[in-house]
């Protein structure tokens, strides 16, 4: 009965509001709140330059969180992000040292390394049915080991190619950083895939009830494998962009992206148990996290405070949205 009233009420609302998840709305409300608080602190907070700069910083996290979201929608998690990011960055830079062919292939090679890490994850999760949390931790350790061996434990001396720098810092459209355009393109592709492709439907189906998806004739293992490969590839691409941004790769450059990428996805209303969530929410989560970081750094909050605030915000939001059903 309440459902029909709700349905009737919702029917009169604009479509984008009707379909909006309360979590997404909350996340956007928090963004507005943060901007407001920031503007109290400093006038320049609402200036277009600052906002665009934030969007550019957000786009690196946005690319990485896109892959994470895909995996979380399946009800899994990808903890190999830190070294998939680093491996993408380092391998792209490394390839650049091998002549003009290396320079040309730097970006695809970096991304491919991430895909390889993702495939190992995917095989472990889909075919060996190792809990994703465990196998991705293990591949993260292996990727780290490989990179340490390759770089000798120091930040590699190879520097990013011009193309990488252009993607991360250049402008194709005046005023709009390329990184933002890239995020927009990847985001659009993700939205299209999630809503319009049979792959996207299968991802949601598996996340909701893998058993039912399997019995519906979906090749669930293939879908899971692909999702992890995409996640690994996007993490590495994020690393490539970051390397372009900083002109070179660095050890442990990915460490700062694991927690924020999970947090962005979860704060955007995607259920950590899988099957529910929209990309719009992830966008909101990414911007929210980036703004939070920015404000904390503008306020000269030390790293310690940032970590604590992160953790507390995530736990609080999860307690609001991410709880398992009480029934037993």
């Amino acid at each position: 009965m309440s459902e029909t009233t709700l349905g009737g009420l919702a029917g009169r609302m604009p479509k984008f509001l009707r379909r909006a998840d309360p979590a997404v709305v909350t996340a956007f409300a928090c963004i507005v709140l943060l901007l407001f608080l920031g503007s109290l602190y400093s006038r320049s907070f609402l200036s277009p330059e600052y906002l665009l700069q934030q969007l550019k910083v957000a786009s690196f996290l946005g690319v990485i969180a896109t892959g994470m979201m895909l995996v979380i929608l399946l009800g899994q998690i990808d903890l190999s992000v830190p070294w998939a990011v680093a491996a993408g960055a380092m391998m792209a830079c490394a390839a650049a040292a091998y002549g003009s062919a290396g320079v040309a292939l730097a970006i695809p090679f970096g991304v491919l390394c991430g895909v390889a890490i993702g495939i190992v994850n995917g095989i472990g999760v889909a075919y060996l049915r190792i809990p994703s949390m465990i196998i991705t931790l293990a591949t993260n350790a292996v990727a780290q080991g490989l990179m340490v061996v390759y770089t000798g434990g120091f930040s590699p001396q190879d520097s990013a190619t011009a193309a990488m720098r252009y993607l991360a810092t250049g402008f194709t459209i005046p005023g709009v950083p390329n990184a933002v355009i890239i995020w927009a393109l990847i985001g659009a592709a993700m939205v299209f895939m999630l809503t319009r492709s049979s792959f996207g439907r299968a991802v949601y189906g598996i996340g909701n009830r893998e058993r039912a998806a399997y019995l519906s004739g979906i090749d669930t293992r293939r879908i899971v494998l692909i999702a992890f490969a995409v996640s690994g590839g996007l993490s590495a691409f994020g690393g490539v962009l970051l390397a372009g941004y900083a002109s070179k790769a660095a050890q442990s450059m990915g460490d700062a992206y694991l927690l924020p990428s999970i947090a962005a996805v979860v704060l955007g209303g995607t259920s950590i148990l899988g099957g529910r969530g929209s990309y719009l929410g992830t966008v909101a989560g990414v911007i929210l996290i980036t703004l939070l970081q920015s404000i904390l750094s503008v306020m000269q909050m030390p790293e310690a405070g940032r970590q604590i605030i992160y953790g507390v915000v995530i736990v609080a939001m999860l307690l609001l949205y991410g709880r398992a059903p009480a029934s037993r």
Partner: protein
Amino acid sequence: MKDWRYWLAEQRGTLFAFGIFIVMFAIYSANHPAGFTANVVQTAANKGVLLAFVAMAQTLVVITAGIDLSVGMIFTLTNCMASWLVIGTGLETGFGVLAVLGTGLLCGAINGAIIIYGRLQPIVATIATGAVFFGLALLLRPVPGGSVNEDLADFLTGRFFGVVPASLVALLVVVLVVWVPFSRSEFGRAAYAAGSSEMAAYMSGVPIRRGKFLAYTLAGLLAAIGGLFLTFFTYTGEAAYASGNAYTLFSIAAVVLGGVSLFGGKGSAIGAIFGALAFRTIGDLLFVFDFDPLWQPLFQGVILLIAVSLGAFALFRVRNRLEWFL
């Protein structure tokens, strides 16, 4: 079958880890330039015991079919805390130790409360609390430093009677005081039962929630004991993100090597201790064979990958594919 056979079957994982450790340690000490001396043993023990404490902590949680990705950060936080508090007169040091252990208990209890009563997934919840614990550690020690009561530190990291490493004795005491009572209590059994089959445990009227809560809380305590010992070894506190993460990761490897099932309900902390010691020894093998230490992270990563893949072989016995999705 005789009783001892059942005992043997139950301890198979532990004995396996013990066996690996003995073999590895034999290879290690045989090839060590200094050979099998009290000094070599003491150094190895001191390194191994740290991971052993953290692995014990992880075991308690894994038994309930959960996971604690914040153990490494509790370890780091208590290390930083000890570098402030465990100093001064005997009484002050004593209170400092209690405060550090109390902090560990509190961290574990927070994890337990959020996961069991807040009904959050252990993995995300402990990643988030891990960030908080690390933040607190950074707050305490923005740069490495501090000091510790060196008499106590030297006593607990030295040797008894010139041969027995004190840290091993401490480990034994912790096993007897924390692990044995827990595993033999009603709550310990509830933790096992919940990990093995939560539904059957519920139908049998087992105190599931209290058992799991106790497991998380004691995990915090054990991680804190590890943090305390880290301070005794290094005399300083350091909020090192990479090291905290590495301990979390290695604790999972040690637990798996020690025969504790990541699906819950099976294994013992004793196994995890041997798993930890074996893991450390394997990592150090590279040194005695004069490998470049750069290879160590890769080597450890590969061991971890192999260890977690071992459990997958049970999969090939599944005859109804629907059981994959349970």
